[in-house]
């Protein structure tokens, strides 16, 4: 009978769910006392241990004859004095319902780093607020870091209620302030409980001080809140951790399922390579499975021998994550040497180390008031939103959708120290700026106006557009020569030259053409900012693209020059033999033949090279610039 009862007890204990939580607060908030109270009242403390604490309490404690429960978890002070880094201490206890792992982060100096470390593996956060002091700056800091690390369940323990006479109004006021703060941070799962850790009210047992409070005690909350990892992503993510090839016949891909599930026969795709196969078997030591789901550790074999290595992600072919080289991520800096944009680091995502740089820091976030500030570096314990560029393609999700595939660490390439941690906010397309976030322009010391004044000109883009063979390049070149002779500073961007270098990765599809023009526009904009008169000569057949460039610069900085030479003349010239090949069909998407040209509706200048000589064309352009007061002498 006893054996059966024991076996039942063991089964129950084995079957408990595991909940990991972080405690946020300082010694002043009574955090150690609260943890001590949790351990003591859930019967985790051996009698001899408690006796030792009781005797210590008379010597060191602050509670008179009662044992100072803070001493159960302290002992860290001495280590701190010895200079030992204490970032996170882990403690274990259980109730009838759950087994708990507490990540306890002491210390004020390293607080951001420590809290982030503890929060990274936590399902839930307990934030302590001192009832007598209310919501403080540190409460906001705790709440922000908790939300940054993606914790969606927060319990606010309003402690030291005994110090405010168990006054319900104090609790109610703190309650509304906390709910507002959490809502602003997007944390929706918020519970509040008034407690006295010292007296033991509403921690594990209810106590008598607060009859007006009829909600759950702290431990009842912890036992009942459904966290289930708050994983939003239902799609399969199996990061390949280890390729298991014990012999020539078995080739298994071992890993821990990060999200979703898989079953025998399911189609899967490896990213970033995008090779596709099907699940043949799911192998475990305890026998093969028909299906498996997060967070199980499995080994799968596939129907086809496709090339997959450690670091790849196995996903459903229709539900792939982002693949790319550029991301925006919040970085928490953890190293004494600051994060410098442009410096090479290694980034570990899932099971891959990628080289890369932080291209720029969009802004630094002040963790105390959430304000954003421009900066050129991130120091220890600072948080910033950064643009990261990897040397190779990587597969990832946003941190909000999947913690495992959306998190990264930054490794210093010389010391190999872990220098920072990141949460991916968005993938950035190489062809465009994503619109999720505001991008700060780096402020520079010398202004656009100063550069322009120095060069005695009003910088602008002279945008030549027209059919192939219309005379754009010839005229643009001549204009530039004329400007140079008059002592002006200019730069000619020519279509073919750009496609040989900057844009050599682009094809002539519509998307390629759009991107071609976009990059040229961005480049022209930088040159205008540098004070130059930029002369461009591209067919640029689409109105929308030209408008996009016009919108990039100031209203009077874009001068559209339409070279309106008729197509018959252009085709007759056909210096490069392109029209002939287009008519044969060997060149596809040729403007004017097999792809449209949208003529400008209101160009600043229009010139027809079939009616004017090159010199006359140049004169028109120069006269226009003079009439607009662009050229000073």
């Amino acid at each position, binding site marked *: 009978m006893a054996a059966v009862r024991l076996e039942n007890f063991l089964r*129950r204990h084995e079957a408990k769910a595991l909940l990991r939580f972080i405690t946020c607060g300082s010694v002043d908030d009574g955090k150690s006392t609260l943890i001590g109270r949790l351990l003591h009242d859930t019967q985790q403390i051996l009698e001899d241990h408690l006796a030792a604490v009781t005797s210590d309490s008379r010597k060191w404690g602050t509670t008179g004859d009662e044992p100072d429960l803070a001493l159960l978890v302290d002992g860290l002070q001495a280590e701190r004095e010895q200079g030992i880094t204490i970032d996170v201490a882990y403690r274990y206890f259980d109730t009838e319902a759950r087994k708990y792992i507490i990540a306890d982060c002491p210390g004020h100096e390293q607080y951001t780093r420590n809290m*982030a470390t503890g929060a990274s593996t936590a399902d839930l956060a307990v934030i302590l607020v001192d009832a007598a002091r209310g919501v403080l700056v540190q409460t906001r800091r705790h709440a922000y870091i908790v939300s940054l690390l993606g914790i969606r369940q927060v319990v606010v323990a309003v402690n030291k209620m005994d110090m405010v006479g168990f006054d319900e109004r104090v609790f109610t006021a703190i309650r509304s302030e906390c709910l507002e703060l959490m809502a602003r941070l997007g944390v929706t799962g918020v519970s509040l409980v008034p407690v006295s850790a010292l007296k033991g009210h509403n921690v594990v047992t209810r106590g008598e001080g607060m009859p007006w409070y009829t909600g759950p005690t702290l431990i009842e909350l912890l036992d009942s809140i459904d966290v289930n990892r708050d994983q939003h992503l239902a799609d399969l993510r199996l990061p390949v951790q280890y390729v298991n090839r014990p012999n020539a016949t078995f080739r298994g891909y071992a890993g*821990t399922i990060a999200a979703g599930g898989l079953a025998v026969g399911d189609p899967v795709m490896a990213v970033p390579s995008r090779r596709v196969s099907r699940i043949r078997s799911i192998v*475990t030591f305890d026998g093969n499975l028909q299906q498996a789901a997060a967070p199980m550790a499995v080994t799968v074999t596939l129907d086809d021998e496709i090339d997959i290595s450690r670091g790849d992600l196995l996903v459903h072919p229709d539900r792939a994550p982002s693949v790319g080289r550029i991301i925006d991520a919040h970085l928490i800096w953890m190293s004494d040497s600051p994060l410098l944009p442009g410096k090479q680091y290694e980034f570990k995502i899932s099971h891959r180390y990628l080289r890369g740089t932080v291209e720029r820091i969009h802004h630094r976030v002040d963790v105390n008031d959430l304000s954003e500030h421009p900066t050129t570096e991130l120091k220890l314990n600072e948080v910033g939103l950064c643009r990261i560029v990897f040397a190779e393609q990587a597969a990832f999700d946003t941190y909000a959708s999947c913690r495992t595939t959306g998190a990264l660490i930054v490794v210093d390439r010389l010391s190999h120290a872990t220098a920072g941690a990141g949460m991916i906010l968005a993938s950035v397309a190489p062809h465009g700026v994503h619109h999720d976030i505001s991008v700060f322009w780096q402020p520079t010391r010398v202004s656009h106006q100063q550069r322009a004044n120095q060069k005695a000109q009003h910088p602008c883009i002279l945008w030549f557009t027209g059919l192939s063979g219309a005379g754009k390049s010839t005229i643009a070149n001549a204009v530039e020569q004329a400007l140079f002779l008059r002592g002006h500073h200019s730069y000619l961007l020519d279509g073919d030259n750009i496609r040989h270098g900057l844009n050599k990765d682009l094809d002539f599809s519509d998307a390629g053409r759009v991107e071609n023009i976009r990059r040229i526009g961005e480049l022209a904009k930088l040159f205008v900012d540098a004070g130059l008169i930029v002369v461009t000569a591209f067919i640029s057949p689409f109105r929308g693209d030209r408008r996009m460039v016009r919108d990039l610069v100031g209203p009077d900085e874009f001068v559209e020059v339409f070279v309106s030479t008729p197509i018959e003349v252009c085709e007759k010239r056909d210096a490069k033999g392109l029209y002939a090949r287009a008519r044969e069909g060997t060149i596809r998407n040729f403007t004017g033949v097999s792809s449209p040209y949208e003529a400008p509706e209101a160009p600043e200048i229009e010139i027809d090279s079939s009616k004017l000589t090159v010199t006359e064309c140049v004169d028109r352009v120069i006269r226009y610039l003079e009439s607009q007061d662009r050229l000073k002498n």
Partner: protein
Amino acid sequence: MARMTQLGRLEAEGIFIIREVAAEFDNPVMLYSIGKDSSVLLYLARKAFHPGPLPFPLMHIDTTWKFREMIEFRDRMAREIGFKLIVHTNEEGLAAGVTPFTHGSRYTDIMKTEALKAALSKHRFDAAFGGARRDEEKSRAKERVFSFRDAQHRWDPKNQRPELWNLYNGRINQGESIRVFPLSNWTELDVWLYIHFEKIPVVPLYFAKPRPVVDRDGMLIMVDDDRMPLRDGEKPRMETVRFRSLGCYPLSGALRSNADSLTSVIEEMLVTRTSERQSRAIDFDQAASMEKRKREGYF
């Protein structure tokens, strides 16, 4: 999400850590102490690489003073499971006559700590698994899963790497190494429960049996062979004892106990944990246990 029990999650975490080390390091080794934690560690490693063999060897630092039953168990496991076993002994120490009886605390330094460092250097291991748990003592509560060591095997407490998510940083320079603790988040009860449910073999010394012991300096010491010098008046007598932890027999205190099976060992452990609380026997009935807690209130 699969609904996983807490032991299931701990198991998955352990397997993850073991695979990560096998994938990232050139030359890992699993330290094998033959105890219950080592048994769980070995079992997790077998699960991690099934159906393949372990991709790394096990290493036992043999002081030559281990219980005979431990050595028998070790060799039987190596035979049955088929892992590569390295046994390292500090031969210089042995030749110099270093024993637990002659060298006191220096013995552990020379035959265990020094021997381990020498063995790690000799084989150029860059990662070593150990079975330590964070719940063992207060100071271990903050230990990393990947614990960095410099080229002299030194642990610099001021220079430990932050450890976030499960993104373990396995980058090291030549000569540096890490110690890895896949059982970090396990408690003693978890270890025993896992052994129970997974039917993992452990050394029989954990179970009570009549054994020859002497009372010495407040400990019950088992006389495992005739190398043990008996003091005046000491005479080995048979007592029913078992061991809570295993090491060198002259340094391991036995426990008077009748717990001769896994379940009775677990029961004894549970009762011992709480019996000193006004001799309250472990209450296996859930409702009564909750009621009792409510009645107890605070203090």
